[in-house]
């Protein structure tokens, strides 16, 4: 057991953990004052549900064994047989923890779609089902030795597993839940940009662990990953700023959205592309995620906090870009530019299937939950805000 690798993965686990409330704070600043507590609480409960599910059966289903490439088994339920030792590499218990945080972040991201209108109880149910039927399969397919891994599709740190799944899941969820009351009629404005930027700072910071830790060891890949990650985020933030400036003013929410678009887009690629590839990914991410957001707004779709436009589109684009820009010098995989056609095809298949699966299964789960316990609060509850109606609290006295 190499102490340096363990140190880095312990640190990375903590960093990714911080992203879970980070998502909550990021989102919370963008909702109205009356839903600020709700929004942060949805991220807290995402962490908690991920922890509970992962412990009970989630880790096992994702990473223990393999049934026809589709799913794992239950032999590591209750974390039985998950060791704290390791000869080389890192102990499985540590790997389990690192993965657990990813499940939590992903569930937190999807809460974008139900902001300011979800019944808290229904979210508990939805969350458990969604981790079980969407997140865990993806994790198994790519990282647990499932069919996509066998096919040869690559996802370094969760372009599909985290971002496509939550982004396209959010889109489906938004359709099931419907628009917020008054959406499109009167302005629904962010109540605290500083809060959003605090959350954004946590996300940017935590992403060092998210992508850097995905190397699982403190080696050249981890180094490449954090360099690629930060450079992509800077170029994406810059590009988004320019895009929004052309149409109006360079707002802070745009800038941080661009940064996060860059982070989401580089996520699947950070261990495969070089820093110049990262720059290209950043610039393009800044453009297409901006356009996706613009498209969503023009269509009047209330996927409220843009998990789809930023994480979904960014993650999908980034995963495809691996098929183009992967530099064999980094990890041995070659994208189109380096003569690797097969990888490109695999990435297209992976993205296409993932989008369909994430959208369809999330839609089905949301419909089911809605049928059983109503996914949305009553009109009056929405009006007074979820903080009071769901949590019995007011954000600011």
């Amino acid at each position, binding site marked *: 057991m190499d102490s340096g690798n363990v140190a880095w993965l312990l640190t990375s686990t903590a960093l990714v953990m911080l992203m879970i409330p980070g998502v909550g704070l990021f989102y919370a600043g963008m909702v109205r004052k009356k839903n600020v507590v709700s929004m942060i609480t949805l991220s807290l409960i995402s962490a908690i549900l991920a922890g509970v599910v992962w412990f009970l059966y989630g880790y096992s289903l994702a990473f223990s064994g393999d049934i026809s490439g589709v799913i794992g088994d239950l032999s590591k339920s209750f974390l039985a047989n998950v060791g704290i030792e390791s000869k080389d590499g890192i102990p499985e218990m540590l790997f389990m923890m690192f993965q657990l945080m990813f499940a939590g972040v992903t569930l937190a991201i999807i809460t974008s779609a139900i902001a300011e209108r979800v019944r808290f109880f229904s979210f508990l149910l939805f969350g458990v089902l969604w981790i079980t039927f969407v997140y865990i399969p993806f994790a198994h397919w790519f990282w647990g030795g499932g069919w996509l891994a066998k096919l040869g599709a690559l996802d370094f740190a969760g372009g599909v597993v985290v971002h496509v799944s939550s982004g396209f899941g959010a889109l489906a969820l938004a359709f099931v839940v419907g628009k917020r009351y008054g959406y499109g009629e*009167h302005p629904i404005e962010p109540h605290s940009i500083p809060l959003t930027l605090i959350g954004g700072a946590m996300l940017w910071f935590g992403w060092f662990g998210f992508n850097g830790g995905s190397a699982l060891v403190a080696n050249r890949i981890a180094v490449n990953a954090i360099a690629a990650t930060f450079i992509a985020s800077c170029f994406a933030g810059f590009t988004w700023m320019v895009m929004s400036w052309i149409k109006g003013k360079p707002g802070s929410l745009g800038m941080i959205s661009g940064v996060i678009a860059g982070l989401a887009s580089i996520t699947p690629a950070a261990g495969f592309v070089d820093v110049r590839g990262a720059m290209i990914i950043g610039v393009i991410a800044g453009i297409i995620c901006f356009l996706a957001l613009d498209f969503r707004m023009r269509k009047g779709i209330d996927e409220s906090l843009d998990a789809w436009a930023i994480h979904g589109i960014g993650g999908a684009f980034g995963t495809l870009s691996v098929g183009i820009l992967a530099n064999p010098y980094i990890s041995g995989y070659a994208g189109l530019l380096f003569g690797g056609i097969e990888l490109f095809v695999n990435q297209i298949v992976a993205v296409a299937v993932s989008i369909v699966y994430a959208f369809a299964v999330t839609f089905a789960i949301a419909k089911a939950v809605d049928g059983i316990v109503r996914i949305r609060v009553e009109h009056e509850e929405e009006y007074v805000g979820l903080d009071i*109606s769901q949590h019995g*609290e*007011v954000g600011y006295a």
Partner: protein
Amino acid sequence: MKMIVAIIRPEKFEAVEDALAEKGYIGMTVTEVKGRGVQKGIKLQYRGSVIEVDLLHKIKLEIVVDDENVDEVVDIISRNARTGRHGDGRIFIMPVEKSIRIRTGEVEKQ
């Protein structure tokens, strides 16, 4: 002169504001307030203790106009702030004896 004091729903503010501006009523003073009326009855809890909360966020407009414009302004506000459900708010008309424009010192009297 009268001061028109209108308590309205926050989400209706834009509509009211635009409708007033259209008819040339620009000047106004806006305050964030909380209102209690028929629309009430929610419980709050803080780490166990329960607190009855029945105040909802409202917007208060104060618009001073000449007597002859009162009805038009009241009408514009009423129409644009109405949803027909409890909590739409109230408008109060209060007398103003004198009004001074600080910039110019200009005085308008009743």
